[in-house]
């Protein structure tokens, strides 16, 4: 097990290096810089700023310098939010984004797995069609459509729930979490149904039935673990997607999370912030993928142990 994790971590290193290098040069080679948009600063001031931020040095020198800094965990100061470091900004946005993602994931797993399992028990009946149609709606209603619709209907017309902010008024966390979780619930529901159908058609389910195991125990004890394999392998991409999806949801609901900072930083050409956040996201995604693989392997006895006792 430790060898496996080590191997995967080693594989992640080149990925991260590519991300860092590509984003660094992409940002630097693009036209414009963080100060060019502000109204005509005096030439000396510009020059001073550029020297201060070491923008006047050769690109490669800057790149090596940057690598050295991030190796020590220093992502540098933000260009736009003067006086704040990138690390501080990420640190401020992270808890919000994580909390949002965690709620969304919880909703997605609860709704997705239960509806998918229910659908798989009576395929091609209304018990299957209703959740699967809902799932299809979920897949075809992207968060930037679903979010505004929920805001309009639940928030503005019915006035049931607040429509913006995060932790300011009770209940303001509900709509964003639902908006973000719904799509994933839809995917998970379809995967869970497929996985369960596959497992329920296996010979060993017939064995369980022949032993006199009740239908509910067949589902819970015999089928669920195998049937959830596709869901588990989807967790890696899902977690990455929940982070990416936060751009839209955080914009719609005006939530001060990482996603909003990121889009703003990109528009502002806040070099250090863009780079810092890109790298941070990449690390998160790599780590989540790794975790998902480990969980998947742990859930499957065939992958967990390599020994095969003969006889």
């Amino acid at each position, binding site marked *: 097990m430790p060898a496996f994790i080590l191997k995967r971590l080693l594989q992640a290193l080149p990925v991260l290096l590519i991300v860092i290098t590509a984003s660094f040069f992409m940002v630097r080679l693009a036209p414009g810089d963080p100060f060019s948009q502000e109204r005509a600063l005096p030439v000396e001031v510009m020059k001073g700023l550029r020297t201060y931020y070491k923008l006047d040095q050769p690109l490669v020198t800057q790149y090596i310098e940057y690598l050295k800094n991030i190796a020590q965990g220093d992502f540098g100061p933000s260009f736009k939010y003067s006086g704040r470091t990138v690390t501080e900004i990420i640190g401020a946005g992270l808890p919000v984004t994580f909390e949002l993602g965690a709620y969304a994931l919880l909703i997605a797993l609860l709704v997705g797995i239960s509806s998918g399992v229910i659908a798989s028990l009576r395929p091609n009946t209304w018990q299957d069609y209703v959740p699967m149609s809902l799932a299809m709606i979920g*897949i*075809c209603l992207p968060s*930037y459509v679903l979010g505004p619709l929920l805001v*309009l209907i639940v928030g503005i017309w019915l006035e049931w729930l607040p429509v913006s902010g995060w932790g300011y008024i009770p209940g303001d966390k509900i709509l964003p979490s639902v908006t973000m979780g719904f799509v994933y619930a839809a995917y998970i529901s379809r995967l869970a149904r497929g996985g369960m159908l596959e497992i329920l058609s296996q010979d060993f389910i017939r064995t369980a039935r022949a032993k006199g195991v009740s239908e509910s125990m067949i589902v819970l004890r015999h089928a669920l673990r195998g049937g959830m394999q596709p869901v588990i392998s989807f967790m890696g991409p899902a977690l990455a997607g929940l982070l990416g999806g936060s751009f*839209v949801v955080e914009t719609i609901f005006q939530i001060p999370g990482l996603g909003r900072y990121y889009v703003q930083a990109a528009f502002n050409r806040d070099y250090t912030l863009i780079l810092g956040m*890109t790298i941070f996201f*990449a690390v998160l995604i790599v780590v989540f993928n790794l975790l998902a693989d480990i969980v998947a392997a742990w859930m499957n006895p065939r992958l967990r142990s390599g020994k095969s006792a003969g006889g």
Partner: protein
Amino acid sequence: MDNARSSPSLWKDAWRRLSRNRLAMLGLCVLTVMVSLALLTPWIAPYSYSAQDLDLGATPPSGAHWLGTDAFGRDLLTLILYGSRVSLAVGFLATAVALTIGVLWGTVSGYAGGRTDAVMMRTVDILYALPFTIFIILLMVIFGRNMFLLFMAIGAVEWLTMARIVRGQVLGIRRQEYIEAAIVMGLPRSRIMYRHVLPNVLGVIIIYTTLTIPNVILLESFLSFLGLGIQPPQSSWGLLISYGVETMEEYPWLLFFPAATLSLTLFSLNFLGDGLRDALDPRAATD
């Protein structure tokens, strides 16, 4: 014992199964209509694309403007029609890019096996691990909202899945005894690929193409929504939705109709894809 059934070919069989699937057929019809409308837009659009009527402003659906008008007095139906040209074009073209790279990469990797396969798939793994959404945002912001870059970026994301799926299929088929029989016969590699491997992965390729198009359309509209995709004066569904969101309290129809069009298209494609998956499932062919 001869339980032979008389049916002309597997493709006809698949079509028969598909045509029995009402949802899939409905999807196919909607798509056909949607694509025809998009192609014919310049001739059938009720108003000119640039026609504005600032005095009129935003009006709800009426006899003159079936889907209403926006704040500049532009006809929403016309905007959606022109938007569909862009959104569908992006959907089909980027998918074609992804398809070409993915199928070639996957087939070669799966068939060659060994070291070539390992290297090619390692590459895909590494690319997979890159945070693409973030990259695309970065790309769009920095290099401007450029259609060509958009295609490249979307194609670059989507071919990975296609390559993985095709490789998996090819690997499975390669182990089939009829491929070994072809090898033992001494048929040239190219002929084995063309006559024996490709016809048997075609079903899967078609299915995933149908399912990739909605992904691409979603991705484009996501970028347009963030203000990073298509830019005015051009229009796309994502762009229209993002305008609709800004004014949804006053003019809800500006959100509703573009969103409905997008969702309807995605529905159709997904239902068709699901239907194809069932119809082309090799296991279903033997029942």
